[in-house]
């Protein structure tokens, strides 16, 4: 599965979309259920969901007239993994830099 990390980062730069993702981490939800806590119209929420979908972060299922959304695990994991890797490499670098600095002064 191809994961568009640019789109994923961009999608998660918005606080409402981060809150939607946090809500979906607790399980599947319909658009109506997602709209409730945000006091937003359904079209506004649908627009946010579209951005999250295009970024590969969430997926939809068809159930009668409903389209419940849930987290697409791979998208979230790929992004987390990249950030974790970067953080780990930087932590190693700066721990070494601490020692270099101690030896300088």
């Amino acid at each position: 599965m191809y994961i568009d990390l640019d789109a994923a980062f961009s999608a998660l730069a918005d606080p409402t979309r981060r809150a939607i993702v946090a809500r979906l981490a607790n399980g599947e939800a319909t658009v109506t259920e997602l709209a409730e806590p945000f006091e937003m119209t359904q079209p506004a929420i649908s627009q946010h969901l579209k951005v999250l979908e295009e970024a590969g972060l969430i997926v939809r299922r068809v159930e009668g007239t409903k389209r419940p959304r849930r987290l697409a695990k791979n998208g979230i994991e790929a992004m987390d993994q990249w950030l974790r890797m970067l953080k780990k490499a930087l932590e190693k670098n700066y721990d070494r830099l601490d020692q270099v600095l101690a030896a300088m002064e």
Partner: protein
Amino acid sequence: MSKLTLKNEGERHIVVTRHFAASPEAVYRAHTDPKLIQKWLLGPEGWTMPVCINEAREGGKIRYEWSHPKKGSFFITGEIVKLEPSRRVVHVERMHLPDPTPDSHIETRFEPDGGGTLMTMRMTLPDAKTRADMLATGMEHGMEESYARLDKMA
């Protein structure tokens, strides 16, 4: 005190902060003197930096080459855009994997912070392909560490 923070800022940047128990002068020097850079800018365990060029002047060139006994080697090239001694370094760099990735723009600031230095590094997010390539290397590395642990258990 010396915990690193990393967060994405807007859609295109990552901001990293870290405190160091040394003066801004010293932290700046460790970021611009090749002999010092070579000792710490090494990433995950197992990599060394046999080539470290940093001309440490505005318009000057950067070339860092890393090598690993099993994974081979890669390098970055770059140019220094702005240098404010003990305060700020702005540079651009690209990785050669071996094809050059798009330029990444990096600003590193050093500020006095409780007898030490607060470093703030703001970098453009590498594009999706670059990140995928970086991640691939990292995952490979993680697996190797796991195999090493398995070897020890056997």
